[in-house]
């Protein structure tokens, strides 16, 4: 428990947070990595997931690839790409995107599919075009699940982005690995606690967004 106290003392010192390699700058980097990786993953997975959910084709492929990618160890992908492209941000980004795509993909196609088929049928009968059905019916009504997929991806990426520092990038993994190499347990713990706090905060934020979406899309009960 002493380590925990020391970590806490470290965290409440202003020095810990300032400077180009301070915890503040690392946390900011960490957040940027997360946003970048989830953003790129969303660009890939959202259209693909909507296509699967809307046309109802390619579903088996999506399910299968989601499961297969889950078996792929992120650390393995990270070091593999790291060996090929060298140290830097490229390898962690590839690894994090591979990690995030399946979650967003699964959330998106289940969101689009979750819409009551009778509602979709009625929209079609009224003369909505495919795009109108997608944007006015399936996306808004599937939004809670779509956001849920993104939420899961954010959680996975925030945690795993720690590994970025293993191949020479920054983020909160940097103080963590520094602490690990130098047996500086308080630093190690402090970095871990910051990541945990970041993850929990993001989770709460996304949870709130998701609940709001759910309420809006069902109408006030």
């Amino acid at each position, binding site marked *: 428990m002493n380590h925990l106290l020391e970590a806490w003392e470290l965290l409440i010192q202003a020095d810990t947070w300032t400077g180009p390699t301070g915890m503040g700058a690392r946390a900011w980097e960490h957040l940027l990595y997360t946003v970048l990786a989830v953003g790129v993953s969303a660009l890939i997975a959202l259209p693909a997931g909507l296509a699967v959910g809307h046309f109802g084709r390619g579903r088996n492929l999506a399910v299968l690839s989601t499961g297969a990618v889950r078996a792929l160890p992120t650390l393995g992908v990270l070091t593999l790409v790291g060996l090929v492209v060298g140290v830097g941000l490229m390898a962690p980004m590839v690894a994090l995107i591979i990690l995030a795509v399946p979650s967003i993909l699964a959330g998106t196609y289940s969101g689009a599919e979750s819409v009551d088929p009778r*509602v979709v*049928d*009625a*929209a079609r*009968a009224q003369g*909505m075009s495919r795009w109108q059905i997608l944007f*006015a019916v399936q996306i808004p009504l599937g939004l809670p699940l779509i956001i849920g997929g993104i939420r899961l991806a954010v959680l996975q990426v925030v945690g795993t982005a720690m590994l970025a520092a293993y191949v020479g990038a920054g983020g909160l993994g940097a103080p963590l690995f520094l602490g690990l190499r130098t047996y500086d347990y308080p630093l190690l713990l402090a970095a871990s606690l910051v990541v945990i706090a970041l993850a929990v905060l993001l989770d709460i934020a996304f949870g709130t967004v998701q609940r709001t979406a759910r309420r809006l899309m069902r*109408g006030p009960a």
Partner: protein
Amino acid sequence: MGIEFRHVEKTYPDGAQAVRDISFTVPSHTTTVLLGSSGCGKTTLLRMVNRMVDPTGGQLLIDGEDIAGAEPVRLRRSIGYVMQHSGLLPHRRVIDNVATGLRLNGAARGPARSQAEELLELVGLDPALGRRYPDQLSGGQQQRVGVARGLAGDPNILLMDEPFGAVDPLVRLELQQQMKRLQTELRKTVLLVTHDIEEALSLGDQIILLRPGGEIAQAGTAQELLSAPADDFVARFLGVAQGRRRLRTSAGQDGEWVVTDAEGRPLGVVEAPPGPVHPRADPSGSVPPEDGR
């Protein structure tokens, strides 16, 4: 004129034949009912009219024009559609649900909403309900909204797929009556699908009775079907064979006419005696069902 089915067929890719060689016409400004039990292809036929389903054979004409050449989305926007489960968009207010069709046809938000309010009133709903979400309405109210939505944009044709099938009997009766009142006023060309014989007899100017396998068993008015069933299937389906719809009158205790079914169970009394009927002299004296209720 109206809607004309010419030798229409539908065979699905797996070989299942939903309807075979169907020909009939829905005359303009009248109501035609497609009647049959589930799986007889009646909904398939209905959905061909707005090209939700395309026939694999034959032709379908609206006002003399083959709709195979019509752009499906535009065709659907010109035809009203009411379905069993209202199919309302749960995330939009009732008023916007009714206005959807108008907005799709290019109406501005303001005019579309005020038209939608008028439509709500037309189907017997308080326009104030328009501010609610569909889940906040009762089943019957949702169904009325469904009808209002179908009528939005004043389409000539109204397709109704079991429109009152999911509500309780009392509400159903109310909705059917409302529908009749509306139809005398609006005179749409209505094609309605139902498995409910009462509904068919009550709403249909013409009834097309389908048999399992997607063939027409008999087409005609309610009176024609009841008085001259084409075959055993029709007679059994309508209940004529079992005597459910073969009604008799007999003299009651106080001299009024009591209507009974074939087994002698009393169903009601005749308010205005249909002329000088002598039950003993005319033992088969059947009364048209409309009067018998």
